[in-house]
């Protein structure tokens, strides 16, 4: 069974590679009972979105210095 530290590592790795079936299953099971990691997972998605928006200049006039 995965602990939360391992889950946070997997959620980061998932942004670079496709997780294996086994990893995906353990992740799903963990997330089903762990609200802390569900929140963390959302934060990772948000962080990804933020970094995308940042350099694409979609926020012109806002990310100017």
């Amino acid at each position: 069974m995965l602990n939360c530290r391992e889950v946070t590592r997997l959620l980061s790795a998932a942004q670079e590679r496709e997780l294996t079936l086994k990893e995906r299953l353990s992740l799903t099971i963990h997330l089903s009972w762990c609200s802390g990691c569900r929140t963390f997972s959302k934060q990772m998605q948000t962080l990804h979105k933020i970094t995308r928006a940042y350099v694409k200049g979609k926020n012109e006039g806002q990310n100017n210095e």
Partner: protein
Amino acid sequence: MAEYMEERNEHSINTKTKSLFDDEFLEQIRRQMLKFATLQLSDAHLAEDVVQEALVGALKNARSFGGRSALKSWVFAILKNKIADALRHKHRVIDASSLLREEDEEQDFADLFNERGFWPRGEHPTAWSSPDESLREGQFWRVFEACLENLPGNQARVFMMREFIEFDSDEICSTLEISVSNLNVMLYRARMRLRECLGNHWFMERG
């Protein structure tokens, strides 16, 4: 108010490219590009060169742009490609000793989790409130930029190479001559730090 005036300018019929892309605007954009390119290439001269090339390339077609925002996106897209080329042609080795120093950082996240690797009772991550609204706030981007700047050098570089230049793992590893597991650790740490920084300096204060 100034921004409002700019907006108006941008849409006024008589405003041609000349006033849209005045010196002040170009200088501002150039500074941002330079900062970004220098971090990625860690070579001031090379950074100057790619920024110059990207700007010249973009301005050739300046007339076809509807406004500053479109020009800025375009210019950064060109810059991104120039940096990617420069990185592919010029392999750089990450300073091994600085990698090792950052290695010690494992301890930093130790207190995030309890001894069994779970979130400690009462210290679960707190949800970030209305992140989409934040993206529209100028102050948010200043906080984000400060958080990026606070990342240890190699983490920042690797993180931006991944997220901004959009290199995949293999490309980053071969460019920097590091192992995949090293890369994963560095990206993990960068994300953990950014998450913490944004949580402490933005989302928490508003929540």
